[in-house]
């Protein structure tokens, strides 16, 4: 089978083989419902408890602070709508570069009597501390992602959380892209809540968590049965949670080696990009080691992605969720990038399976593709 080189780890990452091994018993003989009190159920319950401890440990939280969900999007929805349901309507502030699963729930709140305030970012995609402080005035909820899914730009979340705490506004941070790529510590960051996802770090799709400071009152989005301390009902997805727990542990264990390795690969890509005259978005900011979001002058991102696909490289023109829409990246627009430049954007996100050879081949293919596309442009002009 023809297998293209996968350079789209921010969309989803391959499952770690060890994670699969850990999951398989729960798709076979260990099939109990964790709420059942017989041995089948009790075994499943113990497996979930262990997974909860694993997730808690890698983000420096207590197991009772981990609420399992069906994924990162649900965790984001749960925090925003769940916390808002327990508060009088007021201002909800979110950064201008949030994932749709934060932006859309915030918009829903705006339809229910809340006022939505957007916090701007600087040209490198970082939330401006002063703008943040201003946005917090009178706000009841605030959400700023830890690392952006497209640019990989990392926010100074610790400093933002300190300000939020001083003003007693709960700060939620979508850490879906940060987990396993940079250290994420719930206590050290000082945020009130973190959203996590399994499938971006070598775990299965269909699992995630909201790590939540228990002082934050939350109403569930899914009622009935009372699982997850009543915050998320429904029979637990045991196999996926077991996989998520182990994936967290493996990703964080490997972080010290993987982060510098991926950074080196990315820097090699960026040197190649420089020679092609590419513009790397957020280049001067602190970024995830695996992500580079760039544009080649005069070349459309969609076209480039399609050409690279033909050459055997799977990458993306932006987030997977919006990959059906031809709109330019709203994160780039928020950074002040002109719409026509933003339309040229291409995201490469590396992962455990990538090596120096992949990178060299990718750069060669990119140079080749760019030359051809430019040639076509020259001809058509």
């Amino acid at each position: 089978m023809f297998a293209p080189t996968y350079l789209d780890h921010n969309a989803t990452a391959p499952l770690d083989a060890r994670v699969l091994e850990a999951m398989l018993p729960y798709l076979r003989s260990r099939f109990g419902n964790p709420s059942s009190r017989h041995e089948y159920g009790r075994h499943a319950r113990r497996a979930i408890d262990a997974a909860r401890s694993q997730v808690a440990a890698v983000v420096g939280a207590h197991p009772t602070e981990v609420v399992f969900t069906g994924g990162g999007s649900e965790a984001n929805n749960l925090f925003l709508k769940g916390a808002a349901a327990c508060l009088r309507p007021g201002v909800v502030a979110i950064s201008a570069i949030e994932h749709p699963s934060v932006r859309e729930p915030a918009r829903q709140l705006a339809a229910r009597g809340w006022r939505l305030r957007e916090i701007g970012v600087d040209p490198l995609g970082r939330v401006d501390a002063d703008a943040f402080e201003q946005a917090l005035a009178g706000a009841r909820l605030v959400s700023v992602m830890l690392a952006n899914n497209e640019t990989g730009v990392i926010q100074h979340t610790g400093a933002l959380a300190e300000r939020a705490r001083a003003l007693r506004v709960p700060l939620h941070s979508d850490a879906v892209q940060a987990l396993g790529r940079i250290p994420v510590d719930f206590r050290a960051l000082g945020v009130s809540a973190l959203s996590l996802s399994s499938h971006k770090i070598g775990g299965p799709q269909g699992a995630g968590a909201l790590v939540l400071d228990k002082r934050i009152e939350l109403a569930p989005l899914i009622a009935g049965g009372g699982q997850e301390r009543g915050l998320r009902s429904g029979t637990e997805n045991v196999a996926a949670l077991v996989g998520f727990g182990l994936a967290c542990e493996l990703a964080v264990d490997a972080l010290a080696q993987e982060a510098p390795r991926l950074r080196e690969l990315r820097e090699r890509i960026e040197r190649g990009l420089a020679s092609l005259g590419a513009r790397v978005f957020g280049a001067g900011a602190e970024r995830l080691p695996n992500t580079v979001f760039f544009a080649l002058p005069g070349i459309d991102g969609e076209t480039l992605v399609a050409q690279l696909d033909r050459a055997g490289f799977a990458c993306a023109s932006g987030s997977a969720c919006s990959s059906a829409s031809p709109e330019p990246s709203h994160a780039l627009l928020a950074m002040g990038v002109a719409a026509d430049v933003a339309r040229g954007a291409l995201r490469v996100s590396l992962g455990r399976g990538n090596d120096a050879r992949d990178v060299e081949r990718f750069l060669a293919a990119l140079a080749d593709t760019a030359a051809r596309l430019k040639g076509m442009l020259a001809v058509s002009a």
Partner: protein
Amino acid sequence: MPKLPIYLDYSATTPVDPRVADKMIPYLTEKFGNPASRSHPFGWEAEKAVEEARGEVARLVNADPREIIWTSGATESDNLALKGAAHFLSGKGRHLITVKTEHKAVLDTCRELERQGFQVTYLDVMENGLIDLGRFEQALRPDTTVVSVMMVNNEIGVIQPIAEIGEICRSRGIVFHVDAAQATGKTPIDLQELKVDLMAFSAHKTCGPKGIGALYVRRKPRCRIEPQMHGGGHERGLRSGTLPTHQIVGMGEAFRIAREEMASENEHIRRLRDRLLHGLSDIEAVEVNGDMERRVPHNLNLSFAYVEGESLIMAIKDVAVSSGSACTSASLEPSYVLRALGRSDELAHSSIRFTIGRFTTEEEIDYTVDLLHRRIDKLRELSPLWEMVKEGVDLNTVQWAAH
């Protein structure tokens, strides 16, 4: 000697059929793409698998694949259906009708809607667990917008008159939601025939994986609901979040097998259920809970009078059964379903739900029958109440001293 413990709790969850697991594994390994990725074959392959599975789910219930929305399970489907429809129609009316024996996913959602200002009527059931259609019609109001009745009850297995309720709802323009989590693969469902607008499905009750379910949303006449999970706009905006491809593939395969094998499997299961009932019928003071005719063959819910249910479950721990639904099994409250049938607290406490499934064997049933005989005899020997009954004392006339 069968392998212990014997699993007779198929209504709590089922084993994943090995054919289902085999079909899922490639989507956990080389075919790991995000179905929303439109720019490379990893994404296309995942999307194709998702659409094939959607077709299988639709086929089992004779629906159009475009009417199937993926969710994390039946609980989420019930929440989405009820909140989604009630809120969408809140300008028209704010009254819902459901039944006291529904699953918590429906009842708790209705409670939440009540807190939001909706009114909910919780219908009683008859002694056999079925709703009385006359009473149902009497409960309808001009401002009733949504009716929710489960197809198959999770504790007693009775099948509600969905076709009749659907006719009544359709004639009055009321949205009809049906929780079919316990029905798929157990009783035929034809959504071309049934006048149902919304229907909740679960994979893990039908030999599929946990963490995946679906909501049927009728297109003609079009049923509209408000989404409850917002984000990237997956599932035509009705339910956002990355689709878990391997689980969806598993649900599709589980529903394909259910469609192809339901008829023969039900025969096998009915035979085992009858064998179980027959084997236990010579135990004194045993009663079946719920109608025996309008019932799926998988379920046998029995009350063993003068035996405390929890002690019995402990005494037969080589057989995995439950005294109620799994969701409420952590609480020591007697089953609210059995209470709704008019069973006393004592009798509800003495009840056991046996649920049989695809992998149950005759040997397992025989072992269970034998074990129950022995344990019940023993427990009743220790029971002063049983002794009194055997001596001919009418317990209802006894004045108990408080202490």
